[in-house]
């Protein structure tokens, strides 16, 4: 590869990496901010110029690692419409909250018809700043989202294209419905190849 080409361009794979990284920090941050797991089980790390609290529960870590590595593979083939992080009551299985990360493929710079050939010259720093703004909004949602006053668990659902093959250890599920829901859209960011919108759907208390 020539020096020019390596200088500053994001491929579809790189874009998928950036998004998966955002999902990782975003999901961990939601787990902490919404108080789903005990605060003692979180460690702080620095990312995007923010302090983000990451769960150190090995089960959560491996779950997210498995899910996100598969997500990255699908994302780099543009096979994902939406990723939903669903928070449910662990006892009644009622869905209380759903964080949607909507993916939109973008054309990039060269407008190539073949997605694997597309590149984006958007600066990584700029993308990270956009992500930081979304992360800040996520931590600020605490002020209006209802209290999750029960033992909760979470799951990640991936909305893929029709022709996606089901990998081992994966299942197909139905869509989830939140009763009496309210949706708030947070900011979006874009890598040039993917645009990611973050929306939180929550159950309004009576």
């Amino acid at each position: 590869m020539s020096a020019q080409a390596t200088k500053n361009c994001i491929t579809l794979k790189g874009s998928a990496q950036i998004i998966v990284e955002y999902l990782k920090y975003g999901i961990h941050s939601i787990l902490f901010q919404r108080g789903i797991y005990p605060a003692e089980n979180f460690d702080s790390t620095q990312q995007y110029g923010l302090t983000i609290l990451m769960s150190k529960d090995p089960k959560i870590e491996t779950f997210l690692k498995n899910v996100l590595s598969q997500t990255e593979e699908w994302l780099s083939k543009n096979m994902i419409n939406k990723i939903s992080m669903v928070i449910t009551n662990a006892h009644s299985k009622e869905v209380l909250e759903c964080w949607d990360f909507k993916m939109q493929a973008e054309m990039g710079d060269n407008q190539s018809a073949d997605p694997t050939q597309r590149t984006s010259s958007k600066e990584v720093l700029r993308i990270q700043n956009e992500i930081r703004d979304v992360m800040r909004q996520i931590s600020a949602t605490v002020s209006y989202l209802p209290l999750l006053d029960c033992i909760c668990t979470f799951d990640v659902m991936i909305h893929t294209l029709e022709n996606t093959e089901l990998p081992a250890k994966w299942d197909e599920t139905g869509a989830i419905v939140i009763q009496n829901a309210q949706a708030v859209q947070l900011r979006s960011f874009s890598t040039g190849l993917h645009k990611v919108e973050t929306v939180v759907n929550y159950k309004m208390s009576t």
Partner: protein
Amino acid sequence: MSQFNFVSDLQNALIMDGETRGPAPRWKKKLEASLNGSVNTTRSVLSVSYNTSFSGVQAPTKTPGKSSEGKTKKSNTTPTKTPGGGDRFIPNRAATNFELAHFLVNKDSGDKSDEENDKATTSNSNESNVQASAHKGERQKLLSEVTQVPGDSNGGRILCYQNKAPAAPESHTNPLKVVYSIKTPISTKSGSRYIPTTSERILDAPDFINDYYLNLMDWSGDNIVAVALGSCVYLWNAASGNIEQLTEFEEGDYAGSLSWIQEGQILAIGNSTGAVELWDCSKVKRLRVMDGHSARVGSLAWNSFLVSSGSRDGTIIHHDVRSREHKISSLAGHTQEVCGLKWSTDFKYLASGGNDNLVNVWSLASSGVGTASEALHKFNEHQAAVRALAWCPWQPSTLASGGGTADRCIKFWNVNNGSLIKSVDSKSQVCSLLFSRHYKELISAHGFANNQLTIWKYPTMVKQADLTGHTSRVLQMAMSPDGSTVISAGADETLRLWNCFAPDPLAAKKSASVNSKAKQSVFRQSIR
């Protein structure tokens, strides 16, 4: 602001139900405030127009069916001055599918009669759901289901991983519960001294703007309290009790911050247009206007002839009030509104807090005027906007900062090495912090649930007393020049005076006698 007025006028004109135009009367605002509870209602021109257009609706419940169309419009046209859109959330209804929902509702009312018996269907298919709706409550629920019809999920699979994440341990309780649950005021630990827990005096402060990002009160060295109420600025002489109106801003504008010079009667007012005005309060005369900001000035701090201003545009500007070219430098360390600004007690550092959850510490410039353009420390540990800042009078390198609702922590920093000394969860939004000069204590002002002032022992951070009385969050505090009294301004439109740091009469006597003895001995020495 003129374009906003236009938008609000336009909206008022569109209302057909004969509501009162212009800003809502005070009783209505109060009613709304009590309905909203702890929701942060800002009373800018903008939100006034919002309020009036919805005042017909009995309570601000967000039933999608009732106010849907007006609100979607609103969220599209809401202009924000904060760079990059700001952090305040107005639910974006773009995520809900109103066209489809509206269609389904209309269709429902049309062929309701022949579908009446079709009640049994409660599956996910949304059309049959809506058609089955019988009475209002149920119908509303169904509506909300319809409105979240995912438009993009037609065709496609939803996959999930088989090994699920674990549920939280059974003993776990959500730590956020403290934010939501109202408890009776906590019995305070008996301290070493008597602290009166009721306010000494209550002043009425009608139209005090309930905005977390503004600093609307200050107490001068000459014992005068300046306070901004609505578009006016008033001076209250704490010694005589005289009240004087200093100025009134034109329709739509207001003071965003007030700050007295260290000595004398010069008051700096940062206004909503982004200018900093200097007033000589002994003559009730405006001395000069210093512009430079593109958005409202929400925080001010004096350092002798220098006044630093923090604005909604994210910048901090140092103004030299003596010279014609007043602008010394502009600091771009925040990406959002700067709502806290304090010079250290030795005037070597400037601390700033912003809506971007950052606390920046700026060191004095090598020239001795203003600060270096790069922040010395950037503390990003707070999880919410930082407005409360205070420097320790007896340890000049110690800074205390308090975060908003999502954070609720009071953190102490050593600015010499940039380390976090201590962090205490106050269990409520921290709106203001002050260190006492007589005692090694500090006082913090809080919001929901108890709206109290809390006195803490420093550095142990043992709670000494809770001063309750405010019925809405306490936005601002200032200390009297003798350091014995604290005045607090609450969103309940009252100012309350607390005699919480009165010097201990025994200690005062003792120190007086020590002083007289010291004088004697010096006198004797000189004879010898």
